[in-house]
């Protein structure tokens, strides 16, 4: 099947509505959340309409069906990222997944390989989303471990020149984003992973901005943990993924405790079920897991390689247009190599908030502000940017609309 965004758009009901008095919706905010195809909406609705029951609990047919759907979703996620099924944990979001890891490490007793104490190190980067920064700041504060980070240079790339002094023998955790949600930068993982493993640290990959857009294989990447959110991958909100290597999940203590995650309980104590159940306390987000399975199925039918190629084509197109669009300044890599379809920019004196408002009046949805990466904005010397982020349903026409909108804004605020 050849890739045609116009055919794809027909699967997404939202594109049949209009914006601000009849304008065509130009949705360039998939980095924040993606739109949903009918197939995903149906999967979620069908769960409630036909199969709803608490998974793993009832002795009845509905509970069996619900369990099949929920555990089937786990199989689909596992296959999608090249993992074993018992290594896939469902959470409510990437944010929860990251907090799960950080809190679970905080719970690790002395002698556990995840136990942190003063003298140990946690390493992040300056381009992290707040979701992959604050949990580590907090864990460092609770344990006395030191937080350090790779800096970002003015091209929006990580500065690895001092990698040996940042990832040291004391480093226990390295957590970084695969692709920056602001700059679009795709980080050079190999060098970082090699160094981290050399010193015995685990590597956590925030794949929120990569899993939806390209083929990811956790074993090939040689990472230890990975997180992403369903809602950025044409899936529902309320479902996230936490993947970890089997032997690490076995050693990692639980975070949330309660129903379904236990093996045995007495009035004075409890033992844990093996992973993934150990990390899934309570009745999970079942309909959302069904929706995520449908989302992954949808992406796979189209093909991750085709989606990625399409996004690169549009990104190149916008980068070329932006190069001639003074006073536009791209905040992040200006060339296509090792970058994805998230393009942040400033436009002279027009504040991003005002530019975003103007574009909205033309039906164009972009994100403005610091994009939950405030330290990165400070480092790049821009209080705020405008961000266009692309996905499978975007077209050249969308890119042209954005460029025309920016030019009109220049006249309007001129």
């Amino acid at each position, binding site marked *: 099947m050849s890739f045609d965004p116009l055919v794809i758009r027909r699967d997404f009901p939202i594109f049949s509505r209009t914006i*601000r*008095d009849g304008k065509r919706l130009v949705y360039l905010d998939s980095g924040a959340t993606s739109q949903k195809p009918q197939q995903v909406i149906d999967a979620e609705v069908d769960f409630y309409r036909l199969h709803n029951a608490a998974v793993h609990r009832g002795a009845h047919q509905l509970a069996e069906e619900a369990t099949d759907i929920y555990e089937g979703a786990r199989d689909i996620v596992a296959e999608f990222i090249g993992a074993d099924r018992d290594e896939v944990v469902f959470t409510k979001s990437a944010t929860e997944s990251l907090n799960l890891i950080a809190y679970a490490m905080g719970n690790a007793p002395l002698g556990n390989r995840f136990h942190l104490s003063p003298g140990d190190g946690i390493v992040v980067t300056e381009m992290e989303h707040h979701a992959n920064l604050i949990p580590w700041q907090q864990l460092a504060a609770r344990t006395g471990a030191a937080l350090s980070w790779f800096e970002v240079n003015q091209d929006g790339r990580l500065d690895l020149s001092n990698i040996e002094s940042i990832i040291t023998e004391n480093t226990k955790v390295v957590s970084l984003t695969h692709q920056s949600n602001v700059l679009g930068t795709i980080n050079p993982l190999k060098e970082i992973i090699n160094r981290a493993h050399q010193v015995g640290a685990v590597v956590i990959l925030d794949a929120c901005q990569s899993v939806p857009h390209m083929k990811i294989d956790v074993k090939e990447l040689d990472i230890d943990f990975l997180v992403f959110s369903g809602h950025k991958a044409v899936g529902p909100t309320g479902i996230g993924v936490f993947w970890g290597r089997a032997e690490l999940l076995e050693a990692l203590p639980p975070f949330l405790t309660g129903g379904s995650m236990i093996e045995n309980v007495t009035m004075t104590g409890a033992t844990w079920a093996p992973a993934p159940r150990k990390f899934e306390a309570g009745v999970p987000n079942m309909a959302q897991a069904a929706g995520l399975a449908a989302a992954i199925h949808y992406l796979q039918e189209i093909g991750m390689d085709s989606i990625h190629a399409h996004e690169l084509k549009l990104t190149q197109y916008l980068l070329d247009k932006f190069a001639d669009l003074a006073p536009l300044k791209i905040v992040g890599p200006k060339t296509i190599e090792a970058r994805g379809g998230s393009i942040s920019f400033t436009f002279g004196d027009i*504040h*991003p*908030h*005002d530019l975003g*408002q*103007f574009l909205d*009046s033309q039906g164009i949805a972009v994100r*403005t*502000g*610091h994009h939950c990466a*405030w330290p990165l*904005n400070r480092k790049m010397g821009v*209080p*705020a940017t405008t961000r266009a982020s692309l996905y499978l349903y975007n077209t050249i026409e969308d890119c042209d609309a954005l460029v025309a909108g920016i030019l009109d804004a220049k006249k*309007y*605020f001129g």
Partner: protein
Amino acid sequence: MMQLDNLYQEVILDHYKNPQNKKLESDNDAQVHHINPSCGDEVTLGVKLEGEKILSVNWDGVGCSISQSSTSIMSDLLIGKSLEEAAVISESFLQLMQSKGSQDGDETVLEDAVALAGVSKYPARIKCALLGWMAFKDASVQALSKKTN
């Protein structure tokens, strides 16, 4: 474009390009720094009082046309007023911002600030318009308590 013109009134763009009282003074009775955490807009604002009278509202900041013009308009409006008058004006402005587009604002009270009425139809921008006003409220309370202590 009609809708948008409603938001970006001439007065707003004028104040954005030529902000009034945008120069922090060194002898303020109180000075505060307020941030809009959702977008990063910032205002530093100082107040000088003489008894109950507002001698000076001076400020500096970075941000969108709405947050910066609103602060500029407010500073023009409040200098020379009593704290009591300022409270009435601020309350009236807050009500206008919360009116969801149903009010035009009382020009006899709000003067140029009625130009910001259009903001009330854009929920995401109301915080921008209120940034400077909240900073003033904070600074004036601090200045007053310092004076009366």
